[in-house]
């Protein structure tokens, strides 16, 4: 059974197998509810989200367990990437959304960006700089996929996949034990799959610039911005990673994109996760079996 829906600005699907109608519907209801809950809580497009409230407040706030865990995870990513992965870079990424900003605007955005500009001591968050913009964009969709997969398992689904706009979390393999075959989208080619791979475990996440890249003066700028310089990275067109959870897969693919082609490729190899990288010319590298 396949249910299609739309959330967090992208087309999504829930595939379940080997269950009765009532269980399938409960799984869908749980998935929709969970995705809606996380969207309301962490969307950086909403003024009423928890994240928006946190960044507006000038006082110290104690956050709930789930938010604290996400902040801890973001802190670890920030540390491992030497500051490249930065959830405080929301203002910067917004700048590059659809146009090339002026250097003055970039400088202004840089002044409200930086992990050192917030104080995070679990469970207390203190946003000390005004006009900061917190962006869980690299985390929420992948985390939501993992959460939905777990909820589906809890209602009794044993075979299925949660697909949130290309970020996949496995509920369980096919009833006969075989892995699901899933497609990785081709960058810069609408609707075509670059590769089909078997997903035997966890999650698959893809970071890519194909949907939101800019072309200015013939040059391609991805929407993935280096929070230290304020300028977009020139790197892979897309990176797909398979890991034990969609969240880890998504973080790895985002980091690999941020690190650029050489350092990104080397880091993915060191990490040891199956990955697929497609560069600007469509060349494929990586060790996922297609």
């Amino acid at each position: 059974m396949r249910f299609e829906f739309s959330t967090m600005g992208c087309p999504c699907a829930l595939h379940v197998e080997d269950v009765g109608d009532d269980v399938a519907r409960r799984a869908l209801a749980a998935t929709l509810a969970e995705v809606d809950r996380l969207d309301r809580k962490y969307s950086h497009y909403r003024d009423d989200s928890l994240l928006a409230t946190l960044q507006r407040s000038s006082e110290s706030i104690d956050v709930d367990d789930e938010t604290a865990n996400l902040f801890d995870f973001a802190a670890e990513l920030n540390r491992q990437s030497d500051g490249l992965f930065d959830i405080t870079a929301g203002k910067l990424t917004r700048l590059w959304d659809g146009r090339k900003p002026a250097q003055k605007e970039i400088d202004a955005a840089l002044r409200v960006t930086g992990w050192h500009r917030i104080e995070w001591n679990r469970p207390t968050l203190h946003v000390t700089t005004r006009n900061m913009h917190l962006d869980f964009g690299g985390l929420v969709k992948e985390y939501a996929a993992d959460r939905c997969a777990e909820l589906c398992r809890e209602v009794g689904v044993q075979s299925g996949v949660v697909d949130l706009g290309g970020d996949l979390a496995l509920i369980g393999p096919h009833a006969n034990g075989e892995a699901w075959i899933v497609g990785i989208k081709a960058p810069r080619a609408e609707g075509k799959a670059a590769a089909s791979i078997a997903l035997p475990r966890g999650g698959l996440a893809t970071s890519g610039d194909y949907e939101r890249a800019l072309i200015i003066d013939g040059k391609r700028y991805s929407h993935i911005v280096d929070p230290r310089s304020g300028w977009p990275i020139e790197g892979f067109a897309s990176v797909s990673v398979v890991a034990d959870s969609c969240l880890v897969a998504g973080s790895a693919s985002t980091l690999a994109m941020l690190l650029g082609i050489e350092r990104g490729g080397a880091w993915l190899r060191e990490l040891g996760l199956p990955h697929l990288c497609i560069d600007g010319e469509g060349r494929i590298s990586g060790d996922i079996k297609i």
Partner: protein
Amino acid sequence: MNTNKRPSPSLSLLLAASAALVGHKAHAEETSTAPSIGYRFNVYDEDAFSGAPVIGSDKRYHVDTQQLDFSGNVGERNTLNVDATHEVMSGSSPWYSIPGPNNKPIQVLSGATIRDHRSAISASLMHDAGGNSTTTGSVSYSAERDYHATAIGLEHTIPLNTALTLGFGGSLSHDVIEPTDAEIFDRIRHAQKNTYSAFGSLSWVLNRASVLESGIQLNYQSGYLSDPYKLATVGEAQLPDTRPDRRTEAAWLVRYRLAINDNAALHADSRVAVNSWGQKSVTLDASLYQTLPGDWQIIPGVRYYTQHSARFYAPFFDANDAGSFYSSDYRLGGFGSVAGHLDLRKQFGRWEFTAGMERYHATTRYALGGANAANPGAVSYTRIFAGLDYHFD
């Protein structure tokens, strides 16, 4: 991709940081089940006395039990279970034994009792405490003509990591005994007994096909622990069954579940217990859960039990030998038992039908290490049950 390679340091840190985010239930046990209602009818029938010489009626105990059970969700995070039981008991039970020729004990049974009833109700509420922890509170009340018992319990489970769950809890029970025909037989008029119990357990998900649980339980009982309906022959006289007014017990339980294939699972349980009255016991239990085509399940099983007698147990006592405590209750004597059971289950849509039978045989010959004293009262019985469940969802 070699999944056997140890994760790189970076990956390990990422995995560790992400582990807190999507908590996983270690074992499906805690998943709240859909609301359901169930009914069971149990017939328990002891074998008539055979072999050992007996005075009094040789028909032993017979119990008919009806049980009604309801399970449902209360809000999003709570599961309520209510259970009601009604039993009708009849028949005679061992009263005392006297030495016969060659010092072989002769069992004296009480005359067949009039029908007695027992009603009990219990309720438990399991609360999802977040992070895959659960807290369960329970209460129960049991009443029969001469015995009333009230109990409360509390337990908590916490996942320690994705494979390991810790469980612990405690319970209290307060029982009041007012034996029937107390004046006629010069029994105590009114007594009480308190039981305090605590346990701790760990359960492991060993691999995708097996789980193991190990736990320890400690009980402390104080108050009137003797049986007011039993006597012990001490010298020429029959004196009331007299046991210490306290008892401590420790038990260690191990449970193992193995999925043999998609349609069969093996259950193996063991329990070792010792108490302060000198009793030691070992229980070994194995069952096979076999699913057959057409929504049938068949469950054969065997059970072996052995216990060592209490220090103050004997079928009869020499007037000079008896200490301050003496009892001839067969349940304090040494014996071993072997039991086999066969159950059947069948699903019809939301209905589930179940039926089964157990055959139990206890004798001193089956005791591990041999029983050090005769136990003429050791019992054999047959149990048959049938039941019907309805699942609302």
